[in-house]
């Protein structure tokens, strides 16, 4: 899943990015409202983690501008928003959630809780079960475990993230660009064959019968 961390404290932003990347997410970061606006208008993010106080404005205002459509987000789906802030009063929580945030977490926080909330937000559209299953495939994002017919699959972080994205969008033909957009971060070079290579590695690990089909000229689909 592609996430954006908007946080102006560099030491905090880097830790959050690092931890989420290790959890298999593709994560970008922005340190100001203006950077964040640019990011959400050029990339389709699944989730934005948003600080309240930014050097050039308030995250809560950015959130309501995204929700009202004043800031246009790239793609068809609006990102989920998780407010991450040191403001802990009831008034602030209410204000944040009313501005359109989907969740609210107060600093300082346990990283495990942030990860759990991120997972909870990301599965909200996918029917709500914490464990995904398609056919004989199951995937548990919290436990970082994927199985096929009960057999554990030894996936890398990127392969795991790719499989998760396929399973969340089963039956849909996913283009290389879309996969690059949602599973890789802004550092990925769009002209390499990294998507093709990772998909083929994932296929090998999934074994026979092949679960991921190639649709020539359009992309891949998980059936």
């Amino acid at each position, binding site marked *: 899943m592609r996430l954006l961390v908007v946080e102006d404290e560099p*030491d905090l932003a880097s830790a959050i990015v690092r931890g989420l990347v290790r959890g298999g997410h593709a994560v970008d970061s922005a340190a100001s409202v203006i950077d964040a606006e640019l990011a959400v208008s050029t990339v389709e993010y699944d989730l934005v983690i948003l600080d309240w*106080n930014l050097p050039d404005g308030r995250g809560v205002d950015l959130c309501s501008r995204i929700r009202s459509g004043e800031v246009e987000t790239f793609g068809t789906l609006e990102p989920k928003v998780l407010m991450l802030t040191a403001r*802990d*009063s009831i008034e602030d929580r209410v204000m944040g959630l009313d501005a359109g945030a989907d969740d609210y977490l107060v600093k300082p926080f346990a990283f*495990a809780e942030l990860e759990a909330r991120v997972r909870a937000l990301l599965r909200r559209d996918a029917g709500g079960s914490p464990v995904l299953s398609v056919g004989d495939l199951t995937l548990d994002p919290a436990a970082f475990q994927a199985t096929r017919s009960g057999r554990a699959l030894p996936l890398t972080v990127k392969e795991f993230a790719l499989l998760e994205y396929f399973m969340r969008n089963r039956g849909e033909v996913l283009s290389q660009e879309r996969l690059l957009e949602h599973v890789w971060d802004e550092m990925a070079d769009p002209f390499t064959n990294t998507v093709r290579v990772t998909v083929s590695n994932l296929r090998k690990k999934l074994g026979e019968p092949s679960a991921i089909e190639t649709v020539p000229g359009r992309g891949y689909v998980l059936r």
Partner: protein
Amino acid sequence: MQLPPVTRSLRFRLSGLTSALVFSVAGLALAVIYYVTLRAVQSLTVTGSTLEPVLIDGERLAVRLTQVEMRTIESLIKEVVLNQLAVWTIGILLALFALSLIVGWVIASRSLRPIDEITSVARDIQATDLDRRIGLDGPDDELTRLANTFDAMLDRLSGSFRSQQRFLAHTSHDLRTPLAVIRSNLDVISNDPGATLEDWRQTGEVVERAADRISVMVDDLLAVARKELAGATLTAIDPAQIVTELVSDLGPTARSDGVVIESDMPTDPITVMADPDMLRRALGNLIDNAVRESPAGGAVSLVLRRVGDWTYLGVVDEGPGIDVELALNGDNGDGGMGLGIVRQIVAIHAGRFSAVVRPEGGSVLSIALPDDPDPASAPIGGERLLELYGSPGTHEPGLPTDDTR
């Protein structure tokens, strides 16, 4: 017809009422005594001398004149009148005693009723509802003034209570950010089995930076708390001296960031009632803030001015312009608790803190300190402040440089 204001005071009404009562009761008593005495005198029949026919030797008729002595009459009159007077005077005195008790009771309870009201409201007001006021109705008399004074005291109390609450909220907010840095970095690194020694070393540096920030904040916080507990000791000091000291203390560090600190002070000596340590800390925080806001090559000016009963200490920068709302009420981002501390110190001095963005860029953050801790006048507003401080480095003619009283 409008009565003069003195007639509205409780003292006037009480003395007027008492005097009217004493006057009329005394008049009544005198009238009664006079009437009774008059009656006594009138009913007295003085039969002083009598003529009566008598027979002398059985056949001669003669007239006998009996003469009562004047002294007898006199003593008779005295006895009757004085007796009457004594009886009635004692009776009326006793009646007056009873009447005065009743009247005094009624007057006292009528005039003291507002005090009972004040007492009961004051007793009800707890620290949690400092927003309640007595708001005594009635003429502008001593009791209303007492209630108003009490209300004004409550205003000040609740103001300082609120500012403490705000300070606490901001402080906890500012402490949470570096704590979040420490916690997240440790969480992430300790759950990463592939973390190298280099990763751990970097995390160590991050944690150290955050811990340094926390310790600076805690120092600031304790300094203010200690001062507040001990009470600020306001003494007459020369703010120019503090400004000069700060420029020479903070100048070198600022210069290494490419920012010059200048001072701009009137030649006439100025004294201000302030706690020197607190004022130094407040101004120091303002300068830190201004240096952080300034672009490289910028200048920060410390400006000292006097207008009316107020002394103004302003810090002018050439930065992008501060978020005024945030500076006055909000948190101040990554700058530690700098401005929160300034606001707190200014509140202790009964001064005003203001933040203005200059149209040509940059901002002016200033502290206004009153001569009198209970200032009757308000300090000047933002527009005039800008005029007062001008642009850094430029001294336009016509700017007020000193007392413009």
